[in-house]
Structures are given as structure tokens and as C-alpha cells.
């Protein structure tokens, strides 16, 4: 019953947002049904579209897992975007530097490098300063994120990672590190089955870590009541550093998976604000790893579908953001639905009573 409720409510709330969005769309002079139809078919209408939706979802899911871990530990890692960039940068560097390594080993090395880079980016400055000086992590992670993006850009805009020539981009990573697509359909969607497998493993790992290990238990205790955790002998400072580090580790993993599976080289346009969308993903998922998967797929579908909606119904893509914003807002407000139902029931039972009394 509880589980059913936790699925039905967000769905109902999304419906409310969709209806309000439809009114808005109609007011702006578009046909709401055709707009929504193209949104849905853009996201799921063909195998390639589904592939594209998945491709857009995977980084959101992996980063979202990390953010969920930080949230559960009572920390607001707002700088996942920078950690994601650092992961991608490290993976790219390892990917084109060591060309003599055997394929699988090289791939693993790239992934590990990305994870370490992301983890360090979050753990060292934001983590240690939070633990020992009390520097607010919202500020430090945000600032470190801006720094990361500028740093990555510096590397390829005239810095040491720029490929010879004119365009600011790193050399491509070695072919044996690029995740194979196996089939034409996957290739079209830039979706490697290996990326999917890694994402599934990441989800399982995050879930296991949070709910089945002593580390997860400590982190959650600290997140819910740091004082009680301290009284119980849990190291709050080390938990803060660990939580931010883990959070960055997932973001870094996402960056390296994106590098190996999709981009293959570091580019100026690598940014896509995944780190920010993933915050919403984690929040809407109530920081539950399984929920992160659902929310991640949902946002992936919205982006992919939005692109299609533009093409099919000539609605500017910014309208998807309007809809997305409404959906986030109303899913956030999902509690209004049982409230309204309860209020309605009470009124009805009141009305039923009145004649009797």
C-alpha cells in the first residue's frame, strides 16, 4: 500500500503539472495534444529514441546516486557538475596517454582515474574544510565546481591537453578504451551496453552501500542526527569527508563513463548541466537509489522528448523547460493530493452528518 502510494502520488502530481502545462501551451497558441504526443514519441517512439532517452539518463542516474548519498549524509553537494567534469577530464587524459595498455585494463584504469578525480575534488577541499573549519559545503562545492569547469577549459584552450591544431579539444582517447556499441542501433543512440551495465552496477552498489553496510549506516546516522552519531562513537568528521568523497566518486564515474561511452574526447561543449539536473533527480527520488533510476529515466525522457517536440511541433525547446519546471514543482507538492482528497472526504462526511444531527 505504502509502496503503491509512493508511486501513484508523483504520477498524479505530474499529471496535474501536465494539465497546467497543456493550458499554458494552448494559451500560447499551440495544440497541447500534438505537443505532448511528440514529446512522448520523441522519448519512446522508436528503438533509437528509447536509446537516446537511455543515453541521456545514464549520467543523470549515476550522478544522482552520488548526490543521494551526500543528501542522506546530511550534506548538500551542489557541485556535482564540476566533479563530473573532473572525472571526464581525468578519464580523457588517461585514455589518450597510455596507449600501450591492453584494452580492458586501460578502460578500467580510465574509469578508476575518473572516480578518483571526482572523489578528490569533492573530498579534499569541500570535505576537509567542512569537517575541520565548518565551511558550508553549499558554497565550497559550488565554487569548486566553477573552478573545475574553468580548469578543464583551460586544459583544452591552449593548455597542456589541447590537441595539436586549431580546435580546443583534447586528443581522442585510445580506440581500445572506447566502449564498443556492439550493434548499429546502439551506435545510433551512442549507447553502449557497457555503460548500461556500469550504471546498473552503480545503482546496486549505492543501494548496498547505503542500506547494507556499516559505512552506510554511519553516514545515514550522521545525516539524520550528527550529535547522536557522535555520542554513539561514529566519527562525524571522517563521515563528512567520506560522504562528499563518495558523492564525488559517483559524479566522477559518470564523467568517465560519458567520456568512454559517448564523447571520446574532452570538448568545450562537454558541459550539459547534468550535475544540476541530477540534484533534482536525487531530490525527487527522495534519495533512494531505486528512485534515482526512475527519476533519471524520467528526466532523460523529458530532454530527449523535448528535442523531438521542437522538430515535430515547432515549439521552441525552452517550452520543455517550462513543462519540466512545472513537473518538478508539482511533484514537490505531491502532498497536496492526499490533503485535497482528505479535505474533500471530510466535507462530504460533514455534509452527510449535518442532516442527521
Amino acid at each position, binding site marked *: 500500500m505504502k509502496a503503491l502510494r509512493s508511486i501513484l502520488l508523483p504520477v498524479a502530481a505530474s499529471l496535474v503539472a501536465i494539465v497546467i502545462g497543456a493550458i499554458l501551451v494552448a494559451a500560447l497558441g499551440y495544440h497541447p495534444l500534438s505537443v505532448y504526443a511528440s514529446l512522448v514519441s520523441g522519448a519512446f517512439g522508436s528503438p533509437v529514441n528509447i536509446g*537516446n532517452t537511455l543515453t541521456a539518463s545514464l549520467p543523470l542516474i549515476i550522478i544522482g546516486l552520488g548526490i543521494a548519498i551526500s543528501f542522506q549524509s546530511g550534506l548538500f553537494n551542489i557541485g556535482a557538475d564540476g566533479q563530473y567534469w573532473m572525472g571526464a577530464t581525468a578519464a580523457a587524459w588517461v585514455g589518450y596517454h597510455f596507449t600501450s595498455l591492453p584494452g580492458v585494463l586501460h578502460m578500467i584504469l580510465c574509469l578508476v582515474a575518473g572516480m578518483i578525480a571526482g572523489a578528490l575534488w569533492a573530498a579534499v577541499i569541500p570535505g576537509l574544510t567542512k569537517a575541520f573549519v565548518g565551511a558550508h559545503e553549499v558554497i565550497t562545492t559550488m565554487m569548486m565546481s566553477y573552478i573545475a569547469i574553468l580548469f578543464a577549459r583551460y586544459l583544452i584552450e591552449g593548455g597542456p591537453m589541447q590537441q595539436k591544431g586549431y*580546435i580546443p579539444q583534447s586528443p581522442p582517447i585510445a580506440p581500445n578504451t572506447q566502449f564498443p556499441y556492439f550493434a548499429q542501433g546502439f551506435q545510433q543512440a551512442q549507447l553502449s551496453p557497457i555503460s548500461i551495465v556500469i550504471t546498473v552496477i552503480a545503482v546496486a552498489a549505492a543501494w548496498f552501500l547505503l542500506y547494507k553496510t556499516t559505512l552506510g549506516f554511519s553516514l545515514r546516522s550522521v545525516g539524520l542526527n550528527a550529535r547522536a552519531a557522535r555520542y554513539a562513537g561514529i566519527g562525524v568528521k571522517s563521515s563528512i569527508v567520506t560522504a562528499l568523497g563518495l558523492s564525488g566518486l559517483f559524479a566522477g564515474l559518470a564523467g568517465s563513463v560519458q567520456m568512454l561511452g559517448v564523447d571520446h574526447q574532452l570538448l568545450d561543449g*562537454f558541459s550539459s548541466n547534468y550535475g544540476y539536473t541530477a540534484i533534482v533527480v536525487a531530490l525527487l527520488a527522495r534519495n533512494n537509489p531505486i528512485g534515482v533510476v526512475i527519476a533519471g529515466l524520467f528526466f532523460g525522457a523529458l530532454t530527449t522528448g523535448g528535442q523531438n517536440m521542437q522538430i515535430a511541433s515547432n515549439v521552441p525547446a525552452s517550452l520543455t523547460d517550462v513543462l519540466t519546471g512545472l513537473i518538478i514543482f508539482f511533484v514537490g507538492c505531491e502532498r497536496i493530493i492526499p490533503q485535497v482528497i482528505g479535505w474533500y472526504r471530510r466535507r462530504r462526511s460533514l455534509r452527510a452528518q449535518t442532516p442527521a444531527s
Partner: protein
Amino acid sequence: GCGTNNSSSGTTNTSNSGGTGNTTSTSGKTIKVGLVTDTGGLNDNSFNHLAYVGMQEAQKDLPNIQTSVVQSQSESDYVPNLSHFAQDGYNLVIAVGYLMADAVQQVAREYPKTHFLIIDDSITGIPNVASAIFQSQQAGYLAGVVAGMVQKNHLLKNINSHNTVGVVGGQEIPPVDTYIAGFQQGFHSVDPTGKVIVEYTNSFNDEAAGSQYAQNEISQGADIIFPVAGGTGIGSIKAAQSAKVYAVGVDTDQSYLAPGTVITSAIKRVDTSVFDTIKAVQDGTFKSGVNNFDLSNNGVGIAPIISSLPKSVTDAVNQAKQEILSGKIQVSTTVQK
């Protein structure tokens, strides 16, 4: 929010992409053209917008052209967006920006029957891909000559004795840096001891930052500002206007932004290249490979120079143009630091 009330009135004057084809004329075969912007979007005040303008012109002036636009939200949208048009049987798909080069190569091979045009990158060896390369350093050079003349001879009111011009770049990337490199070279060809301050805002849509960077350069004595930064640059031009100094526009004739302030603009005819390519596809004369747009085919150039400047400036510009065309001057594409 309060947007709903206002926006309903907006439907009357929507000027967004035309979806319905022009079917009034019967001559010319019907072709479908799709435009994929990079993440800058159509309001980038730069090449995405220009490509769109070119496409709209084609729709207006040529018969039976159907157009559609998709603005990419992230770099991972490039491949799906390009494929989408190709799959839908579009005859020509236009990709704006060198960032899409890889995506175009991949998709073009998958859809050999679709024509592709990529702006700002040179792809060769794929029979269905044409590339438009702009020698924007040449446009920058001519604009630099104008600025140099003004500085050296103090041709305008309020020009100080610092002989300094300021460049506000969006980011250290080729489409920006080529302009700047040419501008520097052109400026120094006239005024070898003058100073060019080059700064980058690292953003293309922050008007306020553009204004502030310009103000800083003005405070260092610069009295001609050359922004190469899309929307950010608009702020720079406005800053020049309120500080009563001068500006050089970019990409398109930007004198409308601040008449009397913008002395000329360095122009890159992305719109022409798009228009021409659409026409070529319709006529069946599509040519793959690199199409160079430079001074010789008026693919780049400068906008009319402000009338308060003497003819000597126009003469100097014309002379520089001749020298470039004759190969006597080679314009560099790398910024001097």
C-alpha cells in the same frame, strides 16, 4: 507565475520558426531543410542566429522550401538531432558550429542520401557533406584597419591619446580567436605602436559581464571596443555607448544596436552560405567538400563604415582588401598574447 497573462497576447506577433512551407510557387522541387543549432541556441546573436536568418530568407525567396529548427540542449543531443532530420527524409540538414563536426561525420555516413552542411568546420571526403569555412580573420583585419585609422589619426570626437582598443572575447575558441587575430593584425598594420587589450568573459549570454569587461577596458584608455562574444558582446557595445566611446560590431551589421557608436562591424555571411547551399540543393548543384567564404566571394567583410569618418578610412580599407586578395597580406588566425 505571471507569465501566463502576458504570454497569451504574444501569440499575435510570434515571429518564431515557420513550420509551414511556402507553397505559393510551383517552380523548383520541394525540399525540406532542417537546422540544428549548437548549445548556444537561436538567440546567440551569432552564427546560430545568422544561419536561421539565412534559412528564413531562403524560405521567403525560394519556392517550395520547408524548414524546421531544433536547438540542441546539450552536446549529446547533436547526433540524435541530426539523425532525426535525416531519418525524416529531410533533403538538407544544417549543423551550426565546429562542435558538431564529429556528429555530422557519423550521421552523414549513416544517411548517405541526405545532404549536410556544417558551419565553421572543414569536413572533406564525404560526398554528402559540404563545409562552410569563414576566413573571419580577414573581416577582423579590415575592422582592425578602421580602428587603427581612427586611433592613429584621432578621427573621431572623444578619441584619447592612448591609442588603445579593447577586445572582449567570449571564449578562447577558434570562431572567436580568428576575428581577434585578424583585428590585432589589421590594427597594428596601421598603428604599430597602438595597444590591443584582449580579455575573455568566458560566456556568451552575460550582457552584464560584457558591459563590465568593456568598462574595465575603457578605464584603461581603450576607446574602441570590439566584442566577439555573442549576447555578452551586446553589453559591451552598450557600455561603449554610455561611456561615449566607440565599438566595432561582429558577425552582422550591429550598428542598429548603438547608432553613432558602432563605427563598423566585422561580418561573416553565415546567412549567405546557408541560403546558397539551400539553393544549390534545390537546383541539384550541391557541392561537397569545403566551401571557403572569404573576401573574394564576399563571404566575410565589413559593414558600411560610419559616415562621420573621412574617405581616407574607406581607402585604407579598400587597399588592405586588395592586398589580402592578392595574397600580399597573409592574415594570421592566432591571437598575439
